[in-house]
């Protein structure tokens, strides 16, 4: 049985993590602070009643959300000599559209 990790800190306004769910039901759990680089996510998680937790980001499928997840980590660890964030050209357009929606 696949061990399933649980993340205790995804709920409530002070949660350390946020759970992102794509329109095709893939979940990503990311640290809250770097995720706030996305204006859309910031709106989603801030304030009561803005969005329900786990509200899927309806217009974004798994692939761009996966890149977004990697970007948050990339951004936190970025230095002058950082390795690049790999983005395959075939996903680039999809990602550009997603980033436009996500505001980051």
């Amino acid at each position, binding site marked *: 049985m696949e061990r399933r990790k649980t993340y205790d800190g995804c709920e409530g306004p002070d949660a350390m993590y946020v759970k992102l769910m794509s329109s095709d039901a893939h979940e990503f759990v990311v640290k809250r602070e770097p995720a706030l680089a996305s*204006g859309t996510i910031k709106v989603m998680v801030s304030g009561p009643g803005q969005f329900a937790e786990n509200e899927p980001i309806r217009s974004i499928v798994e692939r761009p959300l996966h*890149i*977004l997840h990697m*970007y948050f980590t*990339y*951004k936190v660890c*970025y*230095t*002058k000599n*950082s390795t690049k*964030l790999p*983005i*395959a*050209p*075939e*996903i*680039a*357009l999809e*990602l*550009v*559209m997603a*980033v*436009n929606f*996500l*505001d*980051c």
Partner: protein
Amino acid sequence: MSIQAPPTLLELAGRSLLMDNQRAILALEDLPIELFPPLFMEAFTRGHTEVLKEMVQAWPFTCLPLGALMKEPHLGMLQVALEGLDMLLTQRDRPRRWRLQVLDLRNAHQNFWRMWTGNVADACSSEAKNKNQTLKLPTVVAKEPLKVFIDVCLTEGPLDEFQTNLYLWVKQRRDVLHLCCKKLTFFAKPNCHTRKFLKILDLNAVQKVEVHCSWKLSTLAVVAPFLGHMRNLRTLLLSHIRGSASTSSEKKERLIAQFTSQCLRMDCLQKFYANAVFFLEGHLDQVLRHLKNPLKTLSITNCQLSDSDWHYLSQYPNTSQLKLLDLRGVELTTFSPEPLRILLEKVAATLKTLDLEDCEITDSQLQALLPALSCCSQLKTFSFFGNHISMPVMRDLLCRTARLSLLGLELYPAPLESYDAHGAIHLGRFSQLCAELTAIVRDVRESKLLVFSTAPCPQCGHQLLYNLGLGRCSCPAPA
């Protein structure tokens, strides 16, 4: 982008998209319009010329402000943009997505690109989208010729490579586009190359012409027909138009008439600057009388004017709404102040800047002007350096400025009593007198910047400026 700041995800995604030309070109069909500018900038920075050509064709705004992106003339980028335009122009039927009407090669509209630099997230935010009208797809009204905007500076010698490329390209397509220039600056006498360039310009678009070099009157006469076609000319600046001793007076009159006859066609002129233009003397009415609209700026500096010129100036109806009157270096000593008094009365409600620097105005002339001057309630800048005024009249002048509550910059000459019998400045007396005058001003109104200046040192040109803390020069006093 600072060294420490990582690129945004949009920048990274854009770079990845641009790695495959074909994929990027296909993507333009579906790209939201707000993503065109950042992608264009990325393609420009990284030299993706094929994508850029397609983006020029697919540009979703009416104006592509390429000059602001280039900062300086960039021949390669120009060629890419012109090739993109050619692809548009060769299409028989206007494609649905064709929005571009203006290619702007001037260094203008920096805000358009600045909005997309480092703050793309803000630009793409829903709040920005709601506010920013450029994000709405412009309506294409009718098929209008494409326009290419450029600021033109004409110098000695042939056109540079950028200008030459543009000239050749435009010349072959004059029936389908207009080369427009809002500001035309001459740094040299026009030659055959620059005249060629002037012939392909849409002269109707020119709003400002500045001449920043010394021309003969005959040169002005040659350029005059071009000026006459500039039906939207708002500002004309002429500088150092000199006469020639060998020119007969008949020829001189003919050349002047060649210029003044074109003034008839300057329907929109609002600002006229003439610095050291010798032929104005005795001909001011010929230059001004045909202008249709009230002038906002009249600047006649370092010229000589005749009695008839002064009389005309006071009667000329199109000076009644002046905001700026500059008569710097026009010697008034031997003239009656009455015409200038009448003129100041006429413009009292509108005048914001008055420059009477180095006019050699005397006490009696200033006293005649004071009643009109004290009514110039909108005055913000008054420059009066270089005139010969005694302390009692200076006191009177400053008391009479009590109602000029908008005055922000005031430049006055050192009173005559500041100098000794040899004409040298007496430092102690200068300071004392200026302190007294400053106190007078501060008693009657607020003063933002109030400066008194001595005459320039005859040896080094240095001036002492009271209230700006500048010290005296070290030239020896005259014997």
